[in-house]
């Protein structure tokens, strides 16, 4: 499956899960910021991705926290003054390899981490997982 094909399928998933229009689902669109996704939508998106990309021959099972990581603030060493520390950033990169953190390096605000998940992040996640 090409990245263009993955993007088209992801776009359809997001249109249905979030009730957004096709032209709103751009690669740069943030799920929480631009597409106004809420926590239950994350579960909906995971279920729909599993159904869309799974086949009778090969399932596409997404473990809880795999696409949308949870408990990112459980370790006090990861956060200082509401900002991710070096250890925190290392944890984010390790747990969210599908997310581009380059623009977040200078900010590191814990309240903005959810906005980093974009349509492109999901395409990257699916692409990596299909190739694995």
């Amino acid at each position: 499956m090409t990245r263009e094909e993955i993007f088209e399928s992801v776009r359809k998933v997001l249109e249905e899960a979030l009730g957004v229009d096709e032209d709103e689902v751009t690669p740069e669109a943030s799920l929480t910021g631009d597409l106004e996704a809420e926590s239950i939508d994350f579960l909906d998106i995971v279920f729909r991705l599993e159904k869309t990309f799974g086949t009778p021959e090969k399932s596409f099972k997404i473990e809880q926290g795999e696409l949308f990581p949870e408990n990112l603030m459980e370790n006090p060493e990861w956060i200082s003054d509401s900002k991710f520390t070096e250890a925190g950033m290392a944890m984010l990169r390790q747990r969210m390899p599908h997310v581009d953190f380059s623009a977040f390096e200078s900010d590191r605000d814990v309240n903005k981490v959810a906005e980093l998940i974009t349509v492109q992040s999901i395409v990257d996640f699916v692409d990596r997982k299909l190739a694995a």
Partner: protein
Amino acid sequence: MRWMWIDSIVEFVADKRLSAIKNVSLAEEYLHDHFPATDAVEALPVLPASLIIEGMAQTAGILVGSARQFRERVILAKISLARLDCEVFPGQTVRYDATLERIDSAGAATAGVVSRLGPISLQWEPIGRIDLMFSHLDEATAGMELPKHNFVFGKNLDVILRTAGLENLKRGS
């Protein structure tokens, strides 16, 4: 019986699907407010769409709850799709067929078909679809204080399960 919008479970396949029916009677008071006669139009008693969604939520909610022996507090979190093409009138029976699409520790997704049975035609006629998302409350509210008893699946459910011969579901057998 408070806030029960299904009368009876008519079919159950564990972890897969559950069907329930509701008989709509002109004796139900809300029908006289939905919609009452005015100077311009005659009364039009129809089952409100919101209560059809509630009926599907109760049907699908029991299916989701049964998958874990009703230990989880299952709450409706999202109406993914609700499309109803026809009204349901007094004298008709509405049927909710809910299918469990996916379940995990955080919640579940269900797909549903709504049908109606006319008292003269005696034919089931699909009239819409309602797809829902449920959240397992304890998972969604980790760390928050909640009442200890399961306030979602209470005594009303016992009656529904008992009349369908499914009382053992609550005991996990």
